[in-house]
């Protein structure tokens, strides 16, 4: 290979490296911000859950329309992916999980609510009905979108358009570990909510050693358990959804950060290898020229 070609390649690798380093830094900053809002949202979810847990003894939660189980014919799948790629195996993991879920079902029995373009594209190509697709461009989770989505899901469930709502998203464990997760959103169950809250409770730190508070034997409920549940249950649906979106966001940023980090490392390594090659080729050329000159002199001298 000519010297100039190698030199061009080296500078190309260095340019790539600059870009990926910058993207890594940006994703790291965004990740910290998203993790911050995930933590800020925690007290609300915990509080809402504990109210529900304590009420479930006195009032019959299962009688609430959003919590009532019924035979499942149609399923709504909420698919939370990112809009942009360059995030390693993040989206493919979530899509694979969702694809496994819909495998045994008829195409007409599944309705997909896509949050994020990657998942939307996949399911649209395969002929699934997508009544609503949301953009996932912003770096945070807008409350308005979350409320709109949860309202639509609740309304559709109550109207009998579908009999269950399942969400596929990426659960944020740590910067290096994001787990594609499938979770039932509707009908609402106490067990499902407490699993969600245990997910958002970190293994150590301020909230980790929080034991559940013993619930008093009787509560004074104003105005009535039914009315309080009617307010609380739709909120819990919204909160669950909000947390899934936050988890997905945090996963996206950290997956992208890690992917960009390995891309930077790789381009560093390639630049180093190419530089070594460049030096070798250059040295070979010099040696050849020197031996040509020496050979020429010898020929002239004899």
């Amino acid at each position, binding site marked *: 290979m000519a010297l100039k070609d190698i030199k061009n390649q080296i500078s190309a690798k260095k340019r790539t490296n600059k870009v990926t380093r910058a993207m890594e830094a940006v994703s790291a900053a965004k990740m910290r911000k998203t993790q911050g809002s995930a933590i*800020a949202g925690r*007290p609300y979810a915990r509080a809402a859950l504990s*109210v529900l847990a304590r009420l479930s003894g006195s009032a019959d939660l299962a009688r609430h329309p959003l919590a009532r189980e019924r035979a499942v014919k149609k399923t709504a799948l909420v698919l939370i992916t990112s809009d942009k790629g360059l995030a390693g195996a993040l989206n493919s993991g979530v899509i694979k999980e969702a694809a496994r879920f819909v495998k045994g079902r008829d195409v007409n029995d599944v309705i997909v609510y896509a949050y994020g373009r990657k998942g939307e594209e996949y399911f649209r190509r395969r002929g699934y009905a997508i009544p609503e697709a949301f953009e996932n461009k912003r770096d945070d989770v807008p409350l308005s979108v979350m409320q709109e989505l949860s309202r639509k899901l609740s309304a559709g469930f109550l109207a009998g358009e579908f009999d269950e709502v399942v969400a596929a998203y990426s659960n944020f464990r740590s910067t290096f570990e994001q787990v594609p997760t499938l979770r039932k959103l509707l009908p609402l169950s106490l067990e499902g909510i407490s699993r969600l809250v245990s997910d958002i409770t970190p293994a150590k730190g301020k909230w980790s050693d929080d034991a559940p508070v013993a*619930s008093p034997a009787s509560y004074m409920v104003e105005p009535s358990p039914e009315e*309080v549940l009617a307010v*609380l249950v739709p909120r819990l649906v919204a909160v669950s959804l909000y947390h899934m979106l936050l988890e997905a966001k945090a996963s996206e940023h950290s997956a992208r950060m890690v992917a960009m980090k390995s891309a930077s490392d790789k381009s560093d390594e390639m630049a180093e290898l190419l530089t070594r090659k460049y030096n070798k080729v250059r040295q070979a050329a010099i040696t050849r020229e020197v031996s040509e000159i020496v050979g020429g002199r010898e020929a002239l001298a004899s």
Partner: protein
Amino acid sequence: MKTFHLTIARVGENLFDGEANAVRLPGTEGVFTVLANHEPTVAELSQGEAYVEAADGQAYHFEVHAGGIAEISSNQATVIL
């Protein structure tokens, strides 16, 4: 004065978390005040304002929209707006 632990939270935001002397809340059945050792209660809130008197004497107030819920038990109160 005896205090109790009060948490006031909104989706994605923690408004107050600490010891308080008293909190006044707009319930659907009328405005009520919670002091330490209040009877265990779950109450739906209506449009209005919540006044908090923190243990350090600071006063706070928050706007409350209809549909909030307050839960009071074992000397702690949780309000979700």
